Protein backbone atom coordinates (compact mmCIF):
# COMPACT_ATOMS: atom_id res chain seq x y z
CA UNK A 1 0.00 0.00 0.00
CA UNK A 2 2.72 2.45 0.90
CA UNK A 3 5.05 1.63 -1.94
CA UNK A 4 3.18 3.71 -4.44
CA UNK A 5 2.50 6.69 -2.23
CA UNK A 6 4.72 9.45 -3.55
CA UNK A 7 6.13 11.76 -0.92
CA UNK A 8 4.80 14.80 -2.69
CA UNK A 9 1.30 13.70 -1.84
CA UNK A 10 2.13 14.09 1.83
CA UNK A 11 3.82 17.42 1.31
CA UNK A 12 0.80 18.63 -0.50
CA UNK A 13 -1.42 17.45 2.27
CA UNK A 14 0.51 19.59 4.74
CA UNK A 15 0.55 22.64 2.58
CA UNK A 16 -3.17 22.48 1.96
CA UNK A 17 -4.03 22.29 5.65
CA UNK A 18 -3.97 26.06 5.68
CA UNK A 19 -7.36 25.93 3.98
CA UNK A 20 -10.43 26.17 6.19
CA UNK A 21 -11.68 22.79 7.38
CA UNK A 22 -14.70 22.44 5.10
CA UNK A 23 -12.71 23.45 2.00
CA UNK A 24 -10.08 20.84 2.79
CA UNK A 25 -12.79 18.24 3.09
CA UNK A 26 -14.01 19.13 -0.38
CA UNK A 27 -10.51 18.86 -1.85
CA UNK A 28 -10.09 15.47 -0.21
CA UNK A 29 -13.34 14.27 -1.69
CA UNK A 30 -12.00 14.87 -5.20
CA UNK A 31 -9.68 11.86 -5.01
CA UNK A 32 -5.92 11.58 -5.48
CA UNK A 33 -5.84 12.00 -9.26
CA UNK A 34 -7.74 15.26 -9.20
CA UNK A 35 -5.65 16.47 -6.25
CA UNK A 36 -2.41 15.55 -7.99
CA UNK A 37 -3.38 17.14 -11.30
CA UNK A 38 -4.75 20.18 -9.46
CA UNK A 39 -1.45 20.52 -7.62
CA UNK A 40 0.59 20.20 -10.83
CA UNK A 41 -1.52 22.86 -12.51
CA UNK A 42 -1.33 25.15 -9.46
CA UNK A 43 2.45 24.78 -9.34
CA UNK A 44 2.69 25.50 -13.07
CA UNK A 45 0.63 28.65 -12.62
CA UNK A 46 2.71 29.92 -9.73
CA UNK A 47 6.26 29.00 -10.66
CA UNK A 48 6.03 29.51 -14.44
CA UNK A 49 7.12 33.16 -14.54
CA UNK A 50 10.12 32.67 -12.26
CA UNK A 51 11.58 29.82 -14.35
CA UNK A 52 14.39 30.44 -16.85
CA UNK A 53 12.94 31.52 -20.18
CA UNK A 54 14.16 28.39 -21.98
CA UNK A 55 12.19 26.14 -19.65
CA UNK A 56 9.22 28.50 -19.58
CA UNK A 57 9.01 28.29 -23.37
CA UNK A 58 9.26 24.50 -23.27
CA UNK A 59 6.45 24.38 -20.70
CA UNK A 60 4.19 26.23 -23.13
CA UNK A 61 4.87 23.59 -25.76
CA UNK A 62 4.30 20.84 -23.20
CA UNK A 63 0.94 22.27 -22.22
CA UNK A 64 -0.06 22.60 -25.88
CA UNK A 65 0.67 18.92 -26.39
CA UNK A 66 -1.06 17.98 -23.15
CA UNK A 67 -4.15 19.92 -24.26
CA UNK A 68 -4.14 17.97 -27.54
CA UNK A 69 -3.75 14.71 -25.64
CA UNK A 70 -6.76 15.49 -23.43
CA UNK A 71 -8.65 16.59 -26.51
CA UNK A 72 -8.27 13.32 -28.41
CA UNK A 73 -8.88 11.50 -25.15
CA UNK A 74 -12.36 13.03 -25.01
CA UNK A 75 -13.42 11.19 -28.15
CA UNK A 76 -11.01 8.31 -28.78
CA UNK A 77 -10.29 7.58 -25.13
CA UNK A 78 -13.87 7.92 -23.91
CA UNK A 79 -15.74 6.24 -26.75
CA UNK A 80 -13.17 4.04 -28.52
CA UNK A 81 -13.65 5.89 -31.83
CA UNK A 82 -10.11 6.16 -33.20
CA UNK A 83 -9.73 9.62 -34.70
CA UNK A 84 -6.78 9.47 -37.07
CA UNK A 85 -7.51 12.92 -38.39
CA UNK A 86 -7.59 14.92 -35.20
CA UNK A 87 -4.94 17.30 -36.53
CA UNK A 88 -7.60 18.82 -38.78
CA UNK A 89 -8.82 20.77 -35.73
CA UNK A 90 -5.28 21.86 -34.87
CA UNK A 91 -4.71 23.30 -38.34
CA UNK A 92 -8.18 24.87 -38.45
CA UNK A 93 -7.58 26.61 -35.12
CA UNK A 94 -4.18 27.80 -36.30
CA UNK A 95 -5.53 29.22 -39.54
CA UNK A 96 -8.42 30.87 -37.66
CA UNK A 97 -5.95 32.73 -35.48
CA UNK A 98 -3.64 33.50 -38.39
CA UNK A 99 -6.43 34.88 -40.55
CA UNK A 100 -8.05 36.79 -37.71
CA UNK A 101 -4.79 38.41 -36.64
CA UNK A 102 -3.54 39.23 -40.12
CA UNK A 103 -6.74 40.28 -41.84
CA UNK A 104 -9.04 41.50 -39.09
CA UNK A 105 -6.33 42.63 -36.72
CA UNK A 106 -7.91 40.90 -33.76
CA UNK A 107 -5.98 40.22 -30.55
CA UNK A 108 -4.38 36.77 -30.26
CA UNK A 109 -6.73 35.91 -27.36
CA UNK A 110 -9.66 36.51 -29.66
CA UNK A 111 -7.86 34.38 -32.26
CA UNK A 112 -7.66 31.52 -29.76
CA UNK A 113 -11.35 31.87 -29.01
CA UNK A 114 -12.10 31.91 -32.75
CA UNK A 115 -9.93 28.80 -33.22
CA UNK A 116 -11.85 27.02 -30.49
CA UNK A 117 -15.22 27.95 -31.97
CA UNK A 118 -14.21 26.94 -35.50
CA UNK A 119 -12.73 23.67 -34.21
CA UNK A 120 -16.00 22.90 -32.45
CA UNK A 121 -18.12 23.81 -35.49
CA UNK A 122 -15.94 21.68 -37.78
CA UNK A 123 -16.25 18.80 -35.30
CA UNK A 124 -20.02 19.21 -35.39
CA UNK A 125 -20.05 19.05 -39.20
CA UNK A 126 -17.67 16.08 -39.44
CA UNK A 127 -19.19 14.32 -36.45
CA UNK A 128 -22.78 14.40 -37.65
CA UNK A 129 -21.77 12.37 -40.69
CA UNK A 130 -18.89 10.21 -39.45
CA UNK A 131 -19.90 9.26 -35.91
CA UNK A 132 -22.43 6.85 -37.37
CA UNK A 133 -19.53 4.83 -38.79
CA UNK A 134 -17.69 2.33 -36.68
CA UNK A 135 -14.17 1.03 -36.23
CA UNK A 136 -11.90 1.39 -39.22
CA UNK A 137 -14.55 3.24 -41.23
CA UNK A 138 -14.61 6.10 -38.74
CA UNK A 139 -10.81 6.12 -38.67
CA UNK A 140 -10.67 6.39 -42.48
CA UNK A 141 -13.39 9.02 -42.72
CA UNK A 142 -11.55 11.19 -40.21
CA UNK A 143 -8.15 10.42 -41.76
CA UNK A 144 -9.03 12.08 -45.06
CA UNK A 145 -10.15 15.37 -43.50
CA UNK A 146 -6.70 16.82 -42.69
CA UNK A 147 -5.38 15.62 -46.07
CA UNK A 148 -8.17 17.46 -47.84
CA UNK A 149 -7.67 20.48 -45.58
CA UNK A 150 -3.95 20.49 -46.43
CA UNK A 151 -4.71 20.68 -50.13
CA UNK A 152 -7.47 23.24 -49.67
CA UNK A 153 -5.32 25.70 -47.68
CA UNK A 154 -2.45 25.12 -50.12
CA UNK A 155 -4.68 26.22 -52.96
CA UNK A 156 -6.44 29.17 -51.28
CA UNK A 157 -4.81 32.56 -51.91
CA UNK A 158 -6.54 34.17 -48.91
CA UNK A 159 -4.77 31.62 -46.70
CA UNK A 160 -1.37 32.27 -48.24
CA UNK A 161 -1.48 29.48 -50.82
CA UNK A 162 1.20 26.97 -49.92
CA UNK A 163 3.32 29.39 -47.94
CA UNK A 164 0.97 29.89 -45.00
CA UNK A 165 0.37 32.99 -42.90
CA UNK A 166 3.48 34.15 -41.04
CA UNK A 167 2.75 36.61 -38.24
CA UNK A 168 4.75 39.18 -36.41
CA UNK A 169 3.29 39.29 -32.93
CA UNK A 170 6.42 39.86 -30.87
CA UNK A 171 7.46 37.98 -27.79
CA UNK A 172 4.28 37.28 -25.83
CA UNK A 173 5.19 34.18 -23.91
CA UNK A 174 3.50 35.32 -20.71
CA UNK A 175 0.09 35.62 -22.38
CA UNK A 176 0.64 32.38 -24.29
CA UNK A 177 1.56 30.59 -21.09
CA UNK A 178 -1.55 31.58 -19.20
CA UNK A 179 -3.84 31.08 -22.18
CA UNK A 180 -2.78 27.50 -22.70
CA UNK A 181 -2.71 26.96 -18.93
CA UNK A 182 -6.33 28.03 -18.70
CA UNK A 183 -7.30 25.77 -21.60
CA UNK A 184 -5.48 22.79 -20.12
CA UNK A 185 -6.93 23.36 -16.66
CA UNK A 186 -10.44 23.63 -18.07
CA UNK A 187 -9.97 20.49 -20.10
CA UNK A 188 -8.56 18.45 -17.22
CA UNK A 189 -11.50 19.55 -15.07
CA UNK A 190 -13.93 18.60 -17.84
CA UNK A 191 -12.28 15.20 -18.32
CA UNK A 192 -12.42 14.56 -14.60
CA UNK A 193 -16.06 15.55 -14.50
CA UNK A 194 -17.18 13.33 -17.39
CA UNK A 195 -15.48 10.26 -15.92
CA UNK A 196 -17.29 10.64 -12.61
CA UNK A 197 -20.59 9.36 -11.36
CA UNK A 198 -23.51 8.55 -13.55
CA UNK A 199 -22.26 10.31 -16.67
CA UNK A 200 -18.93 8.48 -16.37
CA UNK A 201 -20.74 5.17 -15.99
CA UNK A 202 -22.84 5.91 -19.06
CA UNK A 203 -19.77 6.74 -21.14
CA UNK A 204 -18.04 3.53 -20.01
CA UNK A 205 -21.13 1.59 -21.04
CA UNK A 206 -21.15 3.32 -24.43
CA UNK A 207 -17.51 2.38 -24.97
CA UNK A 208 -18.21 -1.25 -24.03
CA UNK A 209 -21.16 -1.79 -26.35
CA UNK A 210 -22.94 0.95 -28.21
CA UNK A 211 -26.06 -1.02 -29.13
CA UNK A 212 -26.55 -2.23 -25.59
CA UNK A 213 -26.02 1.31 -24.30
CA UNK A 214 -28.80 2.51 -26.58
CA UNK A 215 -31.01 -0.34 -25.42
CA UNK A 216 -30.78 0.81 -21.80
CA UNK A 217 -31.73 4.39 -22.62
CA UNK A 218 -28.40 6.16 -23.20
CA UNK A 219 -28.60 8.83 -25.89
CA UNK A 220 -25.54 7.39 -27.60
CA UNK A 221 -25.45 9.63 -30.67
CA UNK A 222 -25.81 12.79 -28.67
CA UNK A 223 -23.16 11.83 -26.11
CA UNK A 224 -20.68 10.98 -28.87
CA UNK A 225 -21.37 14.19 -30.76
CA UNK A 226 -21.04 16.38 -27.67
CA UNK A 227 -17.73 14.74 -26.74
CA UNK A 228 -16.48 15.17 -30.31
CA UNK A 229 -17.48 18.84 -30.41
CA UNK A 230 -15.73 19.53 -27.10
CA UNK A 231 -12.74 17.62 -28.35
CA UNK A 232 -12.60 19.59 -31.60
CA UNK A 233 -13.04 22.87 -29.75
CA UNK A 234 -10.13 22.26 -27.39
CA UNK A 235 -7.88 20.95 -30.18
CA UNK A 236 -8.73 24.02 -32.26
CA UNK A 237 -8.03 26.46 -29.42
CA UNK A 238 -4.73 24.73 -28.62
CA UNK A 239 -3.89 24.74 -32.33
CA UNK A 240 -4.44 28.50 -32.32
CA UNK A 241 -2.10 28.86 -29.34
CA UNK A 242 0.44 26.78 -31.26
CA UNK A 243 0.21 29.12 -34.26
CA UNK A 244 0.65 32.06 -31.89
CA UNK A 245 3.62 30.29 -30.26
CA UNK A 246 5.43 29.68 -33.56
CA UNK A 247 4.27 33.06 -34.96
CA UNK A 248 2.65 31.67 -38.03
CA UNK A 249 0.54 28.93 -39.50
CA UNK A 250 1.48 26.77 -42.48
CA UNK A 251 -0.13 23.91 -44.42
CA UNK A 252 2.10 21.59 -42.44
CA UNK A 253 -0.17 22.28 -39.43
CA UNK A 254 -2.32 19.57 -41.02
CA UNK A 255 0.55 17.05 -40.93
CA UNK A 256 -0.77 13.63 -39.99
CA UNK A 257 2.22 13.05 -37.73
CA UNK A 258 0.58 15.43 -35.21
CA UNK A 259 -2.49 13.22 -35.16
CA UNK A 260 -0.36 10.19 -34.62
CA UNK A 261 1.56 11.86 -31.78
CA UNK A 262 -1.69 12.77 -30.04
CA UNK A 263 -2.95 9.25 -30.39
CA UNK A 264 0.34 7.82 -29.14
CA UNK A 265 0.17 10.00 -26.02
CA UNK A 266 -3.16 8.58 -24.89
CA UNK A 267 -2.37 5.02 -25.93
CA UNK A 268 0.79 5.09 -23.85
CA UNK A 269 -0.73 6.97 -20.92
CA UNK A 270 -4.06 5.15 -20.83
CA UNK A 271 -7.15 5.82 -22.94
CA UNK A 272 -10.21 7.27 -21.33
CA UNK A 273 -8.47 8.01 -18.03
CA UNK A 274 -7.97 11.35 -16.30
CA UNK A 275 -4.26 10.93 -15.60
CA UNK A 276 -3.26 9.06 -18.76
CA UNK A 277 -3.06 11.96 -21.22
CA UNK A 278 -0.84 13.95 -18.84
CA UNK A 279 1.50 10.98 -18.34
CA UNK A 280 1.50 10.34 -22.08
CA UNK A 281 2.35 13.97 -22.83
CA UNK A 282 5.27 13.87 -20.39
CA UNK A 283 6.54 10.55 -21.74
CA UNK A 284 6.27 11.59 -25.37
CA UNK A 285 7.56 15.14 -25.03
CA UNK A 286 10.52 14.90 -22.64
CA UNK A 287 12.55 12.38 -24.69
CA UNK A 288 11.57 14.45 -27.70
CA UNK A 289 13.48 17.45 -26.34
CA UNK A 290 16.55 15.34 -25.55
CA UNK A 291 16.61 13.05 -28.58
CA UNK A 292 15.80 15.69 -31.17
CA UNK A 293 19.41 16.88 -30.96
CA UNK A 294 21.02 13.44 -31.09
CA UNK A 295 18.90 11.32 -33.39
CA UNK A 296 15.68 13.03 -34.45
CA UNK A 297 14.07 9.78 -35.58
CA UNK A 298 14.96 7.89 -32.40
CA UNK A 299 12.01 9.26 -30.51
CA UNK A 300 9.20 8.52 -33.00
CA UNK A 301 10.63 5.02 -33.40
CA UNK A 302 10.60 4.55 -29.64
CA UNK A 303 7.03 5.86 -29.54
CA UNK A 304 6.02 3.56 -32.39
CA UNK A 305 7.51 0.52 -30.67
CA UNK A 306 5.81 1.46 -27.39
CA UNK A 307 2.48 1.88 -29.16
CA UNK A 308 2.81 -1.55 -30.79
CA UNK A 309 3.74 -3.28 -27.53
CA UNK A 310 1.07 -1.49 -25.53
CA UNK A 311 -1.65 -2.15 -28.10
CA UNK A 312 -0.84 -5.84 -28.30
CA UNK A 313 0.06 -6.61 -24.70
CA UNK A 314 -1.12 -3.85 -22.35
CA UNK A 315 -4.22 -2.34 -23.96
CA UNK A 316 -4.94 -0.23 -20.88
CA UNK A 317 -1.81 1.89 -21.27
CA UNK A 318 0.17 2.82 -18.17
CA UNK A 319 -2.79 3.85 -16.04
CA UNK A 320 -5.04 1.00 -17.13
CA UNK A 321 -2.34 -1.60 -16.57
CA UNK A 322 -1.45 -0.39 -13.09
CA UNK A 323 -5.14 -0.35 -12.23
CA UNK A 324 -5.49 -3.91 -13.41
CA UNK A 325 -2.43 -5.46 -11.82
CA UNK A 326 -1.93 -3.37 -8.68
CA UNK A 327 -5.39 -3.21 -7.15
CA UNK A 328 -4.03 -1.36 -4.12
CA UNK A 329 -2.93 1.50 -6.33
CA UNK A 330 -6.36 1.78 -7.87
CA UNK A 331 -7.64 4.49 -5.62
CA UNK A 332 -4.83 6.81 -6.66
CA UNK A 333 -6.24 6.83 -10.16
CA UNK A 334 -9.88 7.36 -9.27
Amino acid at each position, binding site marked *: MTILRPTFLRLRAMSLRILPGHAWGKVRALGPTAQGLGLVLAVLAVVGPVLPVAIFVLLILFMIYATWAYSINLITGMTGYVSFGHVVFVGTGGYALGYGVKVWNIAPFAGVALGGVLGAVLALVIGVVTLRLRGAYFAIATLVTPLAAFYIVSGTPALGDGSGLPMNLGFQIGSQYYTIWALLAAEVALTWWVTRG*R*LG*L*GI*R*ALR*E*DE*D*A*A*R*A*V*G*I*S*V*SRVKLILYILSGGFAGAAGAVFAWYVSGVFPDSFNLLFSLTMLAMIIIGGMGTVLGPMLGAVIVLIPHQILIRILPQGEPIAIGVSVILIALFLPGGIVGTIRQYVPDARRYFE
Partner: protein
Amino acid sequence: MTARLAAKGIVKRFGGVTALDDVSLALDQGTVLGLIGPNGSGKTTLLNVLSGTMRPTSGGVFLDGQRIDRLPGYRVVRAGVAKTHQIPKPFPGLTVRENVLVAATFGGRAPMREGADLPEQVERILRLVELEPRAHAFASALTVQEKKRLEFGRALATGARFLLLDETFAGLSPDEVRNSVEVFQRVQAEVGFGAVVVEHVMRAVLSLAQRVLVLEEGRAIAEGTPQEVVRDPGVIEAYLGSEATNVAP
Protein backbone atom coordinates in the same frame (compact mmCIF):
# COMPACT_ATOMS: atom_id res chain seq x y z
CA MET B 1 -55.06 2.52 -15.01
CA THR B 2 -52.98 -0.06 -16.77
CA ALA B 3 -50.74 0.98 -19.65
CA ARG B 4 -51.29 -0.33 -23.14
CA LEU B 5 -48.82 -1.00 -25.96
CA ALA B 6 -50.35 -1.17 -29.42
CA ALA B 7 -49.11 -1.45 -32.98
CA LYS B 8 -51.49 -0.55 -35.80
CA GLY B 9 -51.15 -1.55 -39.42
CA ILE B 10 -47.36 -2.01 -39.37
CA VAL B 11 -45.79 -2.37 -42.83
CA LYS B 12 -42.03 -2.72 -43.18
CA ARG B 13 -40.31 -3.04 -46.54
CA PHE B 14 -36.63 -3.55 -47.25
CA GLY B 15 -36.15 -2.53 -50.86
CA GLY B 16 -38.60 -4.76 -52.72
CA VAL B 17 -39.07 -7.25 -49.90
CA THR B 18 -42.05 -6.83 -47.62
CA ALA B 19 -41.00 -8.10 -44.20
CA LEU B 20 -44.17 -7.03 -42.40
CA ASP B 21 -47.52 -6.57 -44.10
CA ASP B 22 -50.23 -4.81 -42.12
CA VAL B 23 -49.57 -6.35 -38.70
CA SER B 24 -51.44 -5.07 -35.65
CA LEU B 25 -51.22 -6.08 -32.03
CA ALA B 26 -52.14 -4.77 -28.59
CA LEU B 27 -51.39 -5.78 -25.06
CA ASP B 28 -52.00 -4.46 -21.57
CA GLN B 29 -49.43 -4.08 -18.88
CA GLY B 30 -49.29 -7.28 -16.86
CA THR B 31 -50.04 -9.57 -19.80
CA VAL B 32 -47.76 -11.62 -22.01
CA LEU B 33 -48.15 -11.89 -25.77
CA GLY B 34 -46.34 -14.74 -27.49
CA LEU B 35 -45.06 -14.12 -31.01
CA ILE B 36 -44.42 -17.23 -33.08
CA GLY B 37 -43.85 -18.12 -36.70
CA PRO B 38 -41.37 -19.87 -38.95
CA ASN B 39 -37.91 -18.46 -39.60
CA GLY B 40 -38.06 -15.33 -41.72
CA SER B 41 -41.70 -14.65 -40.88
CA GLY B 42 -40.87 -11.18 -39.52
CA LYS B 43 -40.85 -11.77 -35.76
CA THR B 44 -37.53 -10.08 -35.11
CA THR B 45 -38.39 -7.23 -37.50
CA LEU B 46 -41.62 -6.66 -35.58
CA LEU B 47 -39.71 -6.50 -32.28
CA ASN B 48 -37.27 -4.04 -33.84
CA VAL B 49 -40.15 -1.84 -34.95
CA LEU B 50 -41.78 -2.00 -31.50
CA SER B 51 -38.49 -1.09 -29.81
CA GLY B 52 -37.74 1.85 -32.08
CA THR B 53 -34.65 0.19 -33.56
CA MET B 54 -36.32 0.29 -36.98
CA ARG B 55 -38.89 2.67 -38.35
CA PRO B 56 -41.94 1.15 -39.96
CA THR B 57 -42.62 2.00 -43.60
CA SER B 58 -46.17 2.76 -42.56
CA GLY B 59 -48.34 2.20 -39.53
CA GLY B 60 -47.63 3.30 -35.98
CA VAL B 61 -46.65 2.08 -32.52
CA PHE B 62 -48.48 3.61 -29.59
CA LEU B 63 -47.78 3.56 -25.88
CA ASP B 64 -50.81 4.76 -23.93
CA GLY B 65 -52.00 6.43 -27.10
CA GLN B 66 -48.71 8.32 -27.58
CA ARG B 67 -46.96 7.60 -30.83
CA ILE B 68 -43.48 6.21 -30.23
CA ASP B 69 -42.38 4.81 -33.60
CA ARG B 70 -40.69 8.06 -34.67
CA LEU B 71 -38.66 8.38 -31.48
CA PRO B 72 -34.97 7.43 -31.39
CA GLY B 73 -34.31 4.06 -29.74
CA TYR B 74 -33.14 5.43 -26.42
CA ARG B 75 -36.27 7.58 -26.07
CA VAL B 76 -38.46 4.53 -26.57
CA VAL B 77 -36.61 2.86 -23.69
CA ARG B 78 -37.12 5.91 -21.51
CA ALA B 79 -40.79 6.00 -22.47
CA GLY B 80 -41.12 2.49 -21.07
CA VAL B 81 -40.46 -0.17 -23.75
CA ALA B 82 -37.21 -2.13 -23.43
CA LYS B 83 -35.85 -4.95 -25.58
CA THR B 84 -33.51 -7.82 -24.81
CA HIS B 85 -31.15 -9.10 -27.45
CA GLN B 86 -31.26 -12.65 -28.74
CA ILE B 87 -27.52 -12.92 -28.15
CA PRO B 88 -27.00 -11.17 -24.82
CA LYS B 89 -25.00 -7.95 -25.04
CA PRO B 90 -23.73 -7.26 -21.55
CA PHE B 91 -21.16 -4.53 -20.99
CA PRO B 92 -18.29 -7.00 -20.55
CA GLY B 93 -15.89 -4.69 -18.72
CA LEU B 94 -18.50 -3.58 -16.19
CA THR B 95 -19.50 -5.65 -13.19
CA VAL B 96 -22.94 -7.26 -13.04
CA ARG B 97 -24.03 -4.65 -10.55
CA GLU B 98 -22.75 -1.80 -12.72
CA ASN B 99 -24.55 -3.27 -15.73
CA VAL B 100 -27.84 -3.05 -13.88
CA LEU B 101 -26.97 0.35 -12.45
CA VAL B 102 -26.40 1.81 -15.94
CA ALA B 103 -29.85 0.69 -17.00
CA ALA B 104 -31.48 1.95 -13.81
CA THR B 105 -29.72 5.30 -14.21
CA PHE B 106 -30.42 6.00 -17.84
CA GLY B 107 -33.48 3.96 -18.62
CA GLY B 108 -35.96 5.73 -16.39
CA ARG B 109 -38.16 8.60 -17.36
CA ALA B 110 -35.90 11.05 -15.56
CA PRO B 111 -32.44 10.02 -16.62
CA MET B 112 -29.48 11.05 -14.50
CA ARG B 113 -31.79 11.45 -11.54
CA GLU B 114 -30.08 11.42 -8.20
CA GLY B 115 -32.82 9.31 -6.61
CA ALA B 116 -31.79 7.86 -3.29
CA ASP B 117 -33.66 4.68 -4.12
CA LEU B 118 -31.37 3.76 -6.99
CA PRO B 119 -29.04 1.42 -5.03
CA GLU B 120 -32.01 -0.39 -3.47
CA GLN B 121 -33.65 -0.72 -6.85
CA VAL B 122 -30.48 -2.27 -8.26
CA GLU B 123 -30.23 -4.73 -5.35
CA ARG B 124 -33.88 -5.67 -5.80
CA ILE B 125 -33.34 -6.47 -9.47
CA LEU B 126 -30.18 -8.48 -8.77
CA ARG B 127 -32.21 -10.49 -6.25
CA LEU B 128 -35.14 -10.94 -8.66
CA VAL B 129 -32.96 -12.37 -11.45
CA GLU B 130 -30.89 -14.39 -8.96
CA LEU B 131 -27.60 -12.69 -9.76
CA GLU B 132 -26.90 -11.36 -6.25
CA PRO B 133 -23.95 -13.73 -5.67
CA ARG B 134 -22.38 -12.62 -8.93
CA ALA B 135 -22.90 -8.89 -8.37
CA HIS B 136 -19.20 -8.05 -8.32
CA ALA B 137 -18.12 -10.33 -11.15
CA PHE B 138 -17.33 -8.80 -14.51
CA ALA B 139 -20.14 -9.49 -16.95
CA SER B 140 -17.65 -11.13 -19.33
CA ALA B 141 -17.14 -13.90 -16.73
CA LEU B 142 -20.80 -15.03 -16.68
CA THR B 143 -22.20 -18.24 -18.14
CA VAL B 144 -24.62 -18.04 -21.06
CA GLN B 145 -27.61 -18.51 -18.78
CA GLU B 146 -26.35 -15.86 -16.39
CA LYS B 147 -25.77 -13.46 -19.26
CA LYS B 148 -29.37 -13.99 -20.36
CA ARG B 149 -30.59 -13.25 -16.86
CA LEU B 150 -28.44 -10.14 -16.76
CA GLU B 151 -29.91 -9.04 -20.08
CA PHE B 152 -33.38 -9.55 -18.58
CA GLY B 153 -32.44 -7.78 -15.37
CA ARG B 154 -31.02 -4.86 -17.25
CA ALA B 155 -34.22 -4.45 -19.25
CA LEU B 156 -36.20 -4.56 -15.98
CA ALA B 157 -33.90 -1.98 -14.43
CA THR B 158 -34.83 0.56 -17.09
CA GLY B 159 -38.18 0.66 -15.36
CA ALA B 160 -39.89 -0.36 -18.59
CA ARG B 161 -43.57 -1.25 -18.40
CA PHE B 162 -43.24 -3.40 -21.50
CA LEU B 163 -40.42 -5.83 -22.26
CA LEU B 164 -39.68 -7.22 -25.71
CA LEU B 165 -37.88 -10.53 -25.29
CA ASP B 166 -36.13 -11.94 -28.35
CA GLU B 167 -35.61 -15.70 -28.00
CA THR B 168 -34.63 -15.52 -24.37
CA PHE B 169 -34.76 -19.29 -23.98
CA ALA B 170 -32.92 -20.27 -27.16
CA GLY B 171 -29.73 -22.21 -26.63
CA LEU B 172 -30.54 -23.32 -23.10
CA SER B 173 -30.89 -26.92 -21.90
CA PRO B 174 -34.41 -28.12 -20.97
CA ASP B 175 -33.55 -27.77 -17.27
CA GLU B 176 -32.29 -24.27 -17.77
CA VAL B 177 -35.42 -23.38 -19.76
CA ARG B 178 -37.64 -24.63 -16.95
CA ASN B 179 -35.67 -22.67 -14.41
CA SER B 180 -35.67 -19.51 -16.54
CA VAL B 181 -39.43 -19.77 -17.13
CA GLU B 182 -39.91 -19.95 -13.36
CA VAL B 183 -37.75 -16.88 -12.82
CA PHE B 184 -39.66 -15.03 -15.53
CA GLN B 185 -43.04 -15.90 -14.06
CA ARG B 186 -42.04 -14.97 -10.54
CA VAL B 187 -40.58 -11.64 -11.64
CA GLN B 188 -43.57 -10.87 -13.79
CA ALA B 189 -45.93 -11.56 -10.92
CA GLU B 190 -43.93 -9.26 -8.67
CA VAL B 191 -43.17 -6.41 -11.11
CA GLY B 192 -46.25 -6.67 -13.31
CA PHE B 193 -44.76 -5.71 -16.67
CA GLY B 194 -46.30 -6.54 -20.01
CA ALA B 195 -44.19 -8.56 -22.46
CA VAL B 196 -43.96 -9.57 -26.08
CA VAL B 197 -42.09 -12.88 -26.21
CA VAL B 198 -40.60 -14.15 -29.44
CA GLU B 199 -39.78 -17.77 -28.95
CA HIS B 200 -38.91 -20.98 -30.71
CA VAL B 201 -39.22 -23.10 -27.59
CA MET B 202 -42.96 -23.79 -27.92
CA ARG B 203 -43.56 -25.07 -24.43
CA ALA B 204 -42.10 -21.90 -22.97
CA VAL B 205 -44.40 -19.68 -25.04
CA LEU B 206 -47.47 -21.73 -24.32
CA SER B 207 -46.87 -21.69 -20.58
CA LEU B 208 -45.98 -17.99 -20.43
CA ALA B 209 -48.33 -16.27 -22.81
CA GLN B 210 -51.99 -15.40 -22.30
CA ARG B 211 -52.32 -14.68 -25.98
CA VAL B 212 -50.33 -15.73 -29.03
CA LEU B 213 -49.87 -14.01 -32.39
CA VAL B 214 -48.74 -16.15 -35.34
CA LEU B 215 -46.80 -14.57 -38.21
CA GLU B 216 -46.20 -16.09 -41.58
CA GLU B 217 -44.35 -14.30 -44.36
CA GLY B 218 -44.91 -10.97 -42.68
CA ARG B 219 -48.67 -11.40 -42.14
CA ALA B 220 -50.57 -12.19 -38.96
CA ILE B 221 -52.36 -15.47 -39.73
CA ALA B 222 -53.87 -16.16 -36.33
CA GLU B 223 -54.29 -14.68 -32.90
CA GLY B 224 -55.80 -16.11 -29.76
CA THR B 225 -55.11 -18.03 -26.61
CA PRO B 226 -52.36 -20.64 -26.88
CA GLN B 227 -55.03 -23.38 -26.92
CA GLU B 228 -56.94 -21.74 -29.76
CA VAL B 229 -53.84 -21.05 -31.80
CA VAL B 230 -52.40 -24.55 -31.69
CA ARG B 231 -55.73 -25.95 -32.88
CA ASP B 232 -56.07 -23.48 -35.74
CA PRO B 233 -55.79 -25.49 -38.96
CA GLY B 234 -54.07 -22.64 -40.80
CA VAL B 235 -51.41 -22.41 -38.12
CA ILE B 236 -50.89 -26.15 -38.02
CA GLU B 237 -50.42 -26.21 -41.73
CA ALA B 238 -48.25 -23.11 -42.00
CA TYR B 239 -46.05 -23.44 -39.03
CA LEU B 240 -46.47 -26.39 -36.71
CA GLY B 241 -46.89 -29.09 -39.32
CA SER B 242 -46.98 -32.61 -37.99
CA GLU B 243 -45.46 -31.55 -34.67
CA ALA B 244 -48.75 -29.95 -33.66
CA THR B 245 -49.91 -32.99 -31.85
CA ASN B 246 -46.84 -32.89 -29.62
CA VAL B 247 -47.44 -29.40 -28.33
CA ALA B 248 -51.17 -29.36 -27.95
CA PRO B 249 -52.07 -29.74 -24.30
